[in-house]
């Protein structure tokens, strides 16, 4: 006899098991992390090179100008 017609088996399949819980959590994680990435990480890509490092550590008068040109992307 095919099992699929049994209403108990059907209810059993619908019951949220651990596997389903974890898959749900992992999907939510991917979505939330992607959202956070787009909101806070992608637009804040920061590039520092030897010049910018030197400006921060050792060249006070040039620091602001050089940081702006090296440190922020997308006009932020």
């Amino acid at each position, binding site marked *: 006899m095919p099992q699929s017609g049994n209403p108990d088996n059907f209810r059993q399949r619908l019951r949220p*098991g*651990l*596997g*389903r*819980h*974890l898959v749900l*959590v*992992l999907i*939510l*994680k991917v979505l*939330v*992390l992607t*959202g*956070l*990435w787009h*909101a*806070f*990480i992608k637009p*804040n*890509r*920061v*590039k*520092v*090179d*030897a010049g*910018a*490092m*030197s400006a*921060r*550590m*050792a*060249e*006070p*008068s040039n*620091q602001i100008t050089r*940081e702006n040109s090296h*440190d*922020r992307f997308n006009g*932020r």
Partner: protein
Amino acid sequence: MIDSTVVDLSRLQFAATALYHFIFVPLTLGLSWLLVVMEAAYVMSGKEIYRDMTKFWGKLYGINFALGVTTGITMEFQFGTNWAYYSHYVGDIFGAPLAIEGLMAFFLESTMVGLFFFGWNRLSKAGHLAVTALMALGTNLSAVLILIANGWMQDPVGSAFNPVTMRMELTDFAALVFNPVAQSKFVHTVAAGYVTGSLFVLGISSWYLLKGKHVEFAKRSFRIAAAFGLAGTLSVIVLGDESGYAVSESQKSKLAAIEAMWETEPAPAGFNLIASINEETQSNNWAIKIPYVLGLIATRSTSETLPGIREIRAENKERVKQGIEAVIALEALRKNPQDAELLASFNKVEKHLGYGLLVKKYSEDVRLATPEIIERAAHDSVPKVAPLFWTFRLMVVLGFALFALFALAFWASIKNTFQQKPWLLRWALYFIPAPWVAIHSGWIVAEYGRQPWTVFGVLPTHLSASSLSAASLYGSIAGFVGFYTLLLIAEMYLMFKYARLGPTALQSNNA
């Protein structure tokens, strides 16, 4: 000037994500080896109950792994976004162990996790046991590589500064890997993870015994957890002592702050059990002191003195002055990189460069540093005492309480009397959060105690942070904390649900 709000917010964000991440990690570290022990018992004895134990505790391990995985990734993003100057300055060294961790240890662990859950009917008994052992090995390998990176931040060995690239560069890979600070931190940290996993199993098994549910299953789990936990707590204590000794060698300011030792004492120094700390006057209003103990623990001798905070600050004041010369020499060298004379002048004072950079918190131009600024920079070179003093003591008290619990549990399991000791079972149950509190206290001691540096003595924290906007940081902190809190709630919900179901969950849910 660098915006101190941005630096503080970046620190807060990193600390928050690290502490959340470290809720999941120690349980993974501990449970993985317990699963190996349980499955080894199954393979050797052939008793089905040990397979059920492996599957059930493995299910809780799986919940923790699924919820915890990727929580560390946000920290690695932050090195690039929030700590871009740090990443440039030390990335060549710091990045290597992190990359190895991601590509080797984490991949190994993740692959074996899949085989662990889906390989029960596809692998031989011994083959599945090997998978479980490799999963545990991957978890621990991950920890060693992360702590090698962290150990280098505490004691930057095997590296040198290159004024042309403005980077720290690796000169000795073996020194990086076998850094005593890193190795002692690793064994201390993973042993704390073993204690966490053991108490998790012990506490939940105790709950079953108190309720009279799944008694045979709970008794065997209790015994294994008691033995493993006792070994774990003993290791934590012994290796914690080793870790403290490593700190006394490489980070005297951290040790002095942990012990609220303001003045240098004749050897061997006494240990402040508790004290009323006064940061303003740089002294303790009162203290309960045990003579000689600190000197014996920290130096393992009766003749070696330990410097007090005042002496350390006075020494560092001189280093700040020489550090200012180093910054000025670096400026000149950057303009004429080929000038051998300038290079020789810089090399003379280079080891103090980090201390000169402490001044930049108060003066953009180090030449304008007044005696007051130099004094403040030297003062900053030792972290605040009270947070370190009390979090360290909280960790130690919990460590010894856990040792007492596991010693009694082990004794009771040898005598087979633990079922007749409801107080012991309740103690184990209610104490489940204790290892997490102890571990987080220890993490605060290690990382807050490193301040004001991201890399001890080399790069100050305030120069390491990116120039982000405060608004952006408030947003990202809210996003990360909100997200991590949701994960924590989901973890608690699933853990409670499946722990309540007990081994019957193996029949009702075959995930």
